[in-house]
């Protein structure tokens, strides 16, 4: 058994941060003279207590983490905040059961956006802000993890995105730190820009801030039951549309842009594919809306493009209830759920780059059939893709499919119908938010599901958010052996 103290210390630190953030909604509630501020303060106190105990009690000499410790830290670093972030939901006026509270908090932190709450407009502003904050924090957490942690751990082909070390160890650290701060800075800046744009487009200040946070994190929590349809403004839809697409882009590119390396950012193959797939889907759904629903071309484009971007990036904001759509757009949305955004973005899903790797490899396969002895290597951004990376990606994809199938079967075993089980599993693992069908579709909530189903879905969200293997590796017996 390895030393878990440094891991628990990190978890403690994260909990202290979480406790600190809880004071923000507490302040908002206190200003709005809502008695709920007490709930946030007491939740914050409880979280801080545990966090400090872990942080101070587990102090050890500062040493770099071993691989196993890193895995455990990455997993617990997500699971523990999910548990404590649920406290305000359980104690507050929302009065959720602990399963519901955990579901809501997990859905927030993993930037999924599935909700069990109905009647959002009547909830105190503190709680609504808390949901937005959770998504925003989760979004930044996943970006940092995708840029700094996952590539080092070799998870599912992410090793292709290792930040190149120029030379020597001493120069690498400042560069990594600079990349980290740039990306966090960009994230904050984008959120502020979005909030101002939304405010300028006619949203209230509070709504603008919450929506900006949940948009850039591709989360999907809104302040209204009807989501964006409540505002019914094409300008707002357009701003959020752009925000979601930016949220699904590789944030590492913003670093290149910031350092003046425009060409590298624009020539990125992953970005091109991402926008290409998005465009194709949007055009198809728009045409369907014009043809089958008799929409005006511009209205069709507005709703079609928005819905496709929202589902593909895993956001889950809605301008139009698409649960009564049939046939082609349903298939497109269902398939795009799996595609997801780019590596190092806040979006989840399988991610565009994995499809690119596999596609490149399949192309090479076909050519190889005709010339069995030729040497051909698949490439990505003009770099050859090593064998191990392909194996990792394929392993990832297989486990993804397996997890999806198992989750869908388990949900159906609990009594959900075909559509709800299938789309619920897909939407949880890909961190989208709403599913298809009457119950969990864009018009419904997850509240009517049995508690066991909610816990399974929450587990699926964490699993998908942590790129499966970070969590899965903990279940390998040899992980815990020396």
């Amino acid at each position, binding site marked *: 058994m390895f030393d878990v103290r440094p891991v628990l210390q990190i978890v403690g630190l994260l909990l202290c941060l979480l406790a600190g953030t809880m004071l923000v909604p507490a302040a908002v509630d206190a200003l709005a003279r809502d008695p709920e501020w007490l709930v946030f303060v007491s939740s914050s106190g409880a979280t801080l207590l545990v966090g400090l105990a872990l942080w101070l009690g587990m102090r050890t000499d500062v040493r770099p983490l071993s691989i196993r410790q890193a895995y455990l830290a990455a997993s617990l670093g997500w699971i523990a905040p999910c548990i404590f972030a649920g406290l305000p939901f359980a104690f507050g006026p929302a009065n959720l059961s602990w399963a519901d509270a955990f579901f809501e908090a997990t859905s927030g932190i993993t930037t999924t956006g599935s909700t069990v709450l109905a009647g959002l407009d009547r909830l105190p502003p503190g709680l609504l802000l808390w949901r937005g904050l959770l998504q925003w924090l989760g979004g930044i957490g996943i970006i940092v993890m995708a840029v700094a942690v996952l590539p080092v751990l070799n998870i599912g082909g992410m090793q292709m995105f290792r930040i190149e070390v120029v030379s020597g160890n001493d120069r690498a650290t400042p560069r990594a730190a600079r990349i980290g701060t740039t990306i966090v800075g960009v994230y904050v800046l984008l959120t502020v820009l979005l909030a101002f744009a939304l405010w300028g487009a006619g949203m209230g200040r509070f709504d603008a801030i919450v929506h900006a946070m949940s948009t850039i994190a591709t989360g999907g929590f809104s302040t209204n039951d009807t989501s964006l349809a409540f505002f019914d403004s094409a300008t707002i839809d357009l701003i959020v549309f752009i925000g979601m697409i930016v949220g699904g882009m590789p944030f590492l590119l913003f670093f290149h842009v910031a350092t003046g390396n425009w060409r590298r950012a624009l020539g990125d193959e992953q970005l091109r594919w991402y926008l290409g797939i998005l465009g194709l889907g949007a055009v198809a759904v728009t045409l369907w809306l014009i043809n089958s629903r008799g929409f005006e071309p511009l209205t069709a484009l507005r709703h079609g493009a928005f819905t496709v971007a929202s589902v593909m990036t895993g956001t889950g904001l809605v301008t139009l209830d698409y649960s009564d759509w049939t046939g082609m757009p349903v298939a497109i949305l269902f398939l795009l759920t799996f595609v997801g955004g780019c590596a190092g973005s806040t979006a989840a899903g399988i991610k565009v780059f994995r499809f690119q790797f596999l596609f490149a490899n399949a192309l090479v396969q*076909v050519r190889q059939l005709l010339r069995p002895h030729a040497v051909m290597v698949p490439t990505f951004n003009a770099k050859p893709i090593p064998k191990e990376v392909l194996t990792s990606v394929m392993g990832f994809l297989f486990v993804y499919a397996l997890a999806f199938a198992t989750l869908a079967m388990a949900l159906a*075993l609990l009594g959900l119908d075909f559509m709800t089980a299938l789309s619920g599993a897909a939407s949880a693992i890909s961190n989208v938010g709403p599913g298809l069908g009457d119950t969990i579709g864009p018009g419904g909530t997850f509240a009517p599901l049995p508690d066991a189903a909610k816990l399974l879905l929450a587990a699926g969200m964490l699993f998908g958010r942590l790129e499966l*293997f970070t969590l899965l590796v903990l279940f390998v017996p040899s992980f815990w052996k020396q």
Partner: protein
Amino acid sequence: MLDVRPVIFVNGILLLVLAAAMGVPALVDVISDDRDWQVFVTSAVVTGFVGLGMMLGTRPEGRLELSTRQAFLLTSSAWGFMAAFGALPFSFSALGVSYTDGFFEAMSGLTTTGSTILAGLDTMPHGILLWRAILHWLGGVGIIVMAVAILPILRIGGMQLFKMESSDKTEKVKPRTSQVAGGIVMVYLVLTLMCGVLLWLAGMTPFEAVCHAMATLSTGGFSTSDGSAGHWDSALIHWILTIFMAIGGATFVLFIAPWKRGRWAILTDTQIRWYLGFLGFFSFLLAMWQWVVNDMDAGQALTHAAFNVVSVVTTTGFASTDYSLWGGFPQIVFFILTFIGGCTGSTAGGVKIFRWQVLFAMAGVHLKKLLHPHGVFVIDFNRQRISDAVVDSVLGFVVVYFLTFAVFGLILTMTGLDFVTAITGSAQAISNVGPGLGDVIGPAGNYKPLPDLAKWLLAFEMVLGRLELFTVIVLFSRSFWRG
């Protein structure tokens, strides 16, 4: 440009075989005094005439030799030609079937899929029913011979693993391959006979027994009744069919010499073990569901669960009861099972067990690598190391498989099908299963109401799935046709 003459020549021979096969239903119709015999004779004459013309026009001088490219072209075109002419009896007959429907039916037969556009089977002339079964049976022989003799040489989707041991030495290839192929056809024939006799003893009429035996061993799924196997309310018949479907989905080479080196080769083969374990697990699971949730009698639950699980996994497509009414959980299970498929070198379609084994091992290796980044791990199959090239082609295959499934599912929704019909229709076509889910194409429905375009798409997808994708896809690459 490559020389297509040998390809046409072999196709001609195959058409002559098909024409001869049409004589059988003609004979049956004559005996049962049905006027349909004329249909078969006409079709046989047309087919035979074209076949003869193709053969004579391109007769090669000396021995026939095929290059890799010609072999690719041959495998794909053979299925196309056979289906095109196998459709003639359907469209000439008094059933009033359009050529599109006829082609769909013939392709579904030859690829051993079992999707049908015909209804009212119980009152149909015997000749047509027999013809459907014969198409299955011929398609079944074709695919095993292809899986044993051709696919390993073409290195399709990891099949190079199943190359005959001696094929590295060129001069020994031919006799050994043809010997094995001959043995396999014998085994196939004997098993069909056994199945037929058992079904007859269990209470089917001789005609029904023959048709079902042919459709079972080829894991096809055409029945002689609209109710499929559910027409016979006999557990004995269901179990006979279950066992022979399971055999049809197993590796046929293993039956040639089941007893090797003092051991049952069948029981030591890891693929067979996974296959049987898999069938057992899901049969048990669904039997439990039926017993606990739907209050079915325990014995009946086991019979129906085992029958339908085996039917879907081996991609046969018989139904002993309408399992789409069992509820949400069985629906999801059946949808997922569609992709699994049988063993390599069997008549079953799907991704195939061995590829799942490789994928599973690959995920395991990735997991171990995460903990030991510098460790070296290898993937074993049947106690034999799998080379990187094989892993690579398996990987490519699975990716293209799901890509094809998704693309066709999407296009099908554009022809106006609803979501469930399109997705499950695409899944069953590429895996050669037969029925999908939903009201239209579920176990109780048929493919008649689909638009013509959807039928052509599904027929094309069936060939793609049957020929392990790359055999067909390679024809679309530009470099195939160049020099």
